[in-house]
């Protein structure tokens, strides 16, 4: 089935080509964020100048919280690039599936906080509506008049890829021929603080402490954003004369509790990858590009390194491997969508963004053969995978149109 539309709101930009250029320049959105009212400084990769009005015009943004605005803005881009007009959606029901890890953690925390401080009477009704975990998908459906299936999927950081899997499965079963698929999560003090306190996020005390695969890595930097795709059945894409940006050929996912060993967790990831490859009727040797979600996580990166070594074998160092979280931080649910979009853009541009962490003489990266400079590449089968911090894993095989 075909990917015919892409929409992004990321800390590196909102156009796939622009994001790719920034990545090729070796730039990262990770920086120290100041929370003066909290007397806290936390590493993160939040958006700097997001203004929903740029994407949504003068409509009423009042009922929308930040995460809702992210989702609506990015899905707008996907619908536009896929050429699915408002008129079409008024006639033909469109389906939506949104992956999110937290959705509105900030909104729900603030809602409860205000009620605790001022009393429950002053809890605002529309704010409550935005506290539910399916708020962003509801707001997206309202804004874009999406009247088919509206699903929200939560599977931690792999939620975006699980959403893609859900849509692909529905299309494969013949229940749908066109799906808007996305992932969204926002950056906020609450979750950033909690990530750091739990040891998952780096405190940034050393320069290389958020380097994926780095020997001195201490955790990730939480990010945010929204990424959407329009996924269509082949028949629908042909009927509409859509431009096919790529195809979803296979998928697989799994779960191994987070506390289990790296060995067991890597094995679960490899099983999911094997399922995806089998469905895609594609041998591992045919894969010409990999994208992983390594982000500086102490245990997570070790698991993903083992997966890369196992999948590539002696092709390690010869096959392009992308590590987008180096620039995005851990954007949570939308990460997988960012990974997929980058795979397609990389194929289109023929250039793999560099892994600049490799310039630090970082042992981990050198072993994995990651290139410190942009690298020319050409491929027609991409494998995108992600090992979530909760133990969920997800893999997708994409076909690149030549």
């Amino acid at each position: 089935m075909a990917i015919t539309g892409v929409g992004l709101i990321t800390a590196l930009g909102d156009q796939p080509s622009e994001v790719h250029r920034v990545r090729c320049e070796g730039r990262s959105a990770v920086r120290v964020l100041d929370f003066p009212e909290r007397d806290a400084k936390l590493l993160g990769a939040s958006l700097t100048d997001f203004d929903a009005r740029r994407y949504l015009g003068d409509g009423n943004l009042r009922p929308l919280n930040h995460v809702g605005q992210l989702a609506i803005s990015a899905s707008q881009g996907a619908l536009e690039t896929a050429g699915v007009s408002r008129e079409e959606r008024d006639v033909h029901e469109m389906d939506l599936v949104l992956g999110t890890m937290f959705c509105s953690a900030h909104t729900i925390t603030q809602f409860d906080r205000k009620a605790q401080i001022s009393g429950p009477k002053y809890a605002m009704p529309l704010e409550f509506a935005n506290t539910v975990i399916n708020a962003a998908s509801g707001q997206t459906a309202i804004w874009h008049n999406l009247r088919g299936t509206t699903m929200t999927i939560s599977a931690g950081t792999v939620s975006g890829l699980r959403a893609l899997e859900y849509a692909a499965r529905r299309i494969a079963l013949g229940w749908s021929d066109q799906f808007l698929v996305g992932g969204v999560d926002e950056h906020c003090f609450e979750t950033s603080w909690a990530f750091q306190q739990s040891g998952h996020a780096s405190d940034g005390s050393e320069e290389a402490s958020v380097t994926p695969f780095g020997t001195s890595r201490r955790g990730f930097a939480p990010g945010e954003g929204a990424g959407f795709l329009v996924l269509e059945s082949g028949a629908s894409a042909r009927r509409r004369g859509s431009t096919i940006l790529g195809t979803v050929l296979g998928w697989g996912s799994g779960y191994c509790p987070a506390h289990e060993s790296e060995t067991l967790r890597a094995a679960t990831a490899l099983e999911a990858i094997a399922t995806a490859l089998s469905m895609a009727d594609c041998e591992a040797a045919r894969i010409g590009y990999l994208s992983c979600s390594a982000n500086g996580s102490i245990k997570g990166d070790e698991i993903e390194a083992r997966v890369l070594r196992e999948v590539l074998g002696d092709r390690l160092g010869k096959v392009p491997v992308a590590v987008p979280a180096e620039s995005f931080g851990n954007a949570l649910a939308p990460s997988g969508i960012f990974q997929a979009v980058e795979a397609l853009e990389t194929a289109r541009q023929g250039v793999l963004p560099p892994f600049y962490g490799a310039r630090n003489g970082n042992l981990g990266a050198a072993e994995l053969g990651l290139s410190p400079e942009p690298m020319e590449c050409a491929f027609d089968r991409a494998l995108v995978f992600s090992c979530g911090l909760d133990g969920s894993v997800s893999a997708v095989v994409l076909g690149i149109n030549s």
Partner: protein
Amino acid sequence: MQQVVVTGLGVVTPLGHGADVFWPAVLRGESAFAEVSSFDTTKYRIHRGAEIATLGARDKYLSEEEAASMGRTAQFALVAARLGLRDSGLSSLDPGRTGVVMGTTSGEPSEIERFNDLDLSGDLDQIGGRFISHYPCNHIPGQLATRLKAFGGGGPVMLPVACAAGNCAITYAADLLQLGEADVMLAGGADSFSRITFTGFAGLMAIAPERCQPFDLNRKGMMPGEGAAFLVLERAEHALKRGAKIYAEVAGYGLSCDAFHMTGGDREGKGAVRAMEKALERSRLNSEEIDYISAHGTGTKSNDLHETIAVKKVFGEAARKVPMSSVKSMFGHTMGAASAIEAAVCCLTIEHGVVPPTMNLENPDPECDLDYVPNESREQTVDVAMSNAYAFGGTNASLILRRWLS
């Protein structure tokens, strides 16, 4: 398309845990409404709901360690899942071929409350690792998968689709079974009472002061509840091969979205109509073939009216003949657990040939003039039951369960 059947039910509800306790209570029309005890409601205008006071004898389905380390919603979910598995007769599970999918509205809101309680007392540096491990809502199905050893179907997943969550989980499970990605799926929903949800619905002025009176002229709103339910689903051939008892077949379902308003439904019930019509179409049934409707029936002025309008549009004249009741009249709105509990109710109506009542229906509303099975359960053969659920955010989900005929 492979047939998918229900082979086990497990419920944790304000009216009791396990179908053997819950079902008779429902048929007797018992009420679970009482003064809220889990937090201070002095500052609210309303003070009642349907809380689960204790797991009672069913606490043996939870180990001490689980009771100590798991959140409330997760505990309800785990007990309901274990009850369902016991009911199904499955003695051992193949970890790679058994999966867990469920729904919720708020997940584990106590973790948000804990964050704020620590914050407001200046102790936020004591948050530790629990927020990140326990708050992301897929932690709950993850706990079930880990403790039941059910990692199949692509791994545990949460569909936080609020009040329609249980129905959505069942549709997700059916998809996986039909594609052969799992052999057994646990599909359900769970939510627990919280000051956040209570505050939210109180702020919407949606909570009734005394009890829930769906379709009644003087209905004043919903009553918040809590609980969990899980159905065990398999492909028919898999169930038959092991000689399983089959409650019903998942005949079909329909999903739609109002795309209208976050908390209020579209006045003409167009989204609800489409969900019901899709469910009928996919089940290859006419509306006359529906013997019972489990209504969403929250007890709010608007839901009950719009739901009635929608049913009339779909069923036409048959709307007056098909009994439609709301079990929320007895134990309130259990949020993400609601449609999972109601799917179990539909299975039980098919098995026992009795339909549950809508309690507290004392003054008929001229605009709600269908047969809501007022105040007394009724013996009636039910071969096909429809269950409707309508969520915040506008998602509508209709599920049709049919007596299994070999």
